[in-house]
């Protein structure tokens, strides 16, 4: 019997509430102030947990009605979220390589790689993607560096 998306989300939220409740014990309790720093977060966690439980209950109770609906052609999970996963992985890669590559190189790569990964990989398009990446990041970098005098991450490879 397939579990609905709401049920999965509710279960994940309940698990998250458990983790956060546990993490709330790491908050330092001070001997000053009238209200400890744990009070409001715990109230919110309890409220989220209660509503998540309600959501889980509702989704489980409503499941028979959902089952009666005409079934759509199932799409493989990996295929469905392939592009989103690519974006997430590339974004994480951008974040972790930022201290090394800097905003200019890392940014240009972060624009070029998703365009190429999601677009059709033909030589002409790859050249266009490279041009778009270099020009867009170059303009952005120039505006922030020279126009607004904002120091962007310089990186170790090309520290400018």
């Amino acid at each position: 019997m397939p579990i609905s998306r709401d049920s999965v989300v509710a279960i994940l939220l309940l698990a998250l509430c458990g983790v956060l409740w546990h993490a709330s014990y790491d908050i330092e309790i001070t001997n000053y102030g009238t209200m400890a720093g744990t009070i409001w977060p715990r109230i919110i966690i309890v409220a989220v947990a209660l509503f998540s439980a309600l959501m889980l209950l509702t989704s489980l109770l409503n499941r028979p009605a959902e089952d009666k609906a005409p079934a759509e052609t199932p799409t493989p999970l990996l295929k469905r979220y392939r592009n989103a996963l690519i974006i997430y992985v590339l974004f994480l890669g951008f974040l972790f390589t930022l201290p090394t590559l800097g905003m200019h190189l890392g940014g240009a790569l972060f624009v070029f790689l998703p365009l190429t990964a999601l677009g059709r990989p033909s030589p002409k398009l790859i050249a266009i993607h490279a041009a778009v990446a270099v020009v867009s990041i170059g303009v952005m970098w120039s505006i922030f560096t020279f126009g607004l005098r904002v120091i962007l991450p310089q990186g170790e490879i090309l520290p400018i």
Partner: protein
Amino acid sequence: MIEHVITAFQDVFAFNNLLLMFLGTTAGLIAGSIPGFTITMAVVLTLPFTFGLSAVEGLATMIGVFVGGLSGGLMSGMLTGIPGTPSSIATTFDGFPMTRRGKPGLALGLGVWSSFFGGILSAVLLVTLAPSLARIGLKFGPWDYFALVLFALTITASLSGEALVKGIIAGLLGLFVATIGEDEINGVARFTFGSETLESGFAFLPVLIGLFAFSQLLSDVQDTDKAREPLMKSVEAKGIRVEHWAAIKLIFSRWTNVLRSSLIGVFTGVLPAPAGRSRTSWPTTRRRRPRRSRRPSGPVPRTASSRRKAPTMRRPAAP
């Protein structure tokens, strides 16, 4: 009082002040349309240029930047779905779907003209009622703020329509995210998991861009063929013409919306701390619409409701 108003008019309509306002508004429009570049930053960058000006000229320039920034934020919000400024968040709810349906000119026109009419109404109300409104605003205490925040949360939850529980959970998760970082009262770290980066919490602007830009990106790239399509299928790339008259006619046909949203803007604007007037006005207007038209790409006037100008009495929010 009248003589003060006349003197102010004489100052405002002096040629040099009008010129400075024009320059300030242009700079504000550009700054506001850049996602991540706030109006406050634009005003701060303008400040050094005003040192050599008189008080009236300096104020005219900075107010021009501020007002231009407010209007500039709607451009990126409506055309790309990424709000240029936090005050433009609500314009993305309806303005961006309108743009995707091939009506970017009308969306921009509605945003600009409702900003204009809302600004005029707010200014008139402030000139006439400012002392009384200020007294009300200053009487607001902690309990009143708490009630106002609770009210804001309930109307935020009501936005999710029939999925009320999901809306409440989303609102609560937003509240929880705000608790991450250093506790402002006791100065202790909360939910940082040993990360120094998290100690300063989440700044509003990155969260805003992440929520709107990244979620839009992810929904667009889900289907590779759809991702290759242009944002506006029915509009030629030659240029977008702002539909001024159509926008004005639509705004006047729903004048109660303009009035109601302006009153909400004035009331929440005189309160010393709360922000998010557009997010207060938008759901109120949404709830006034017939149920069948509450879809995301729904009717035009809600775009107008989110563009009411804020009164200038608002104190700067605490950092």
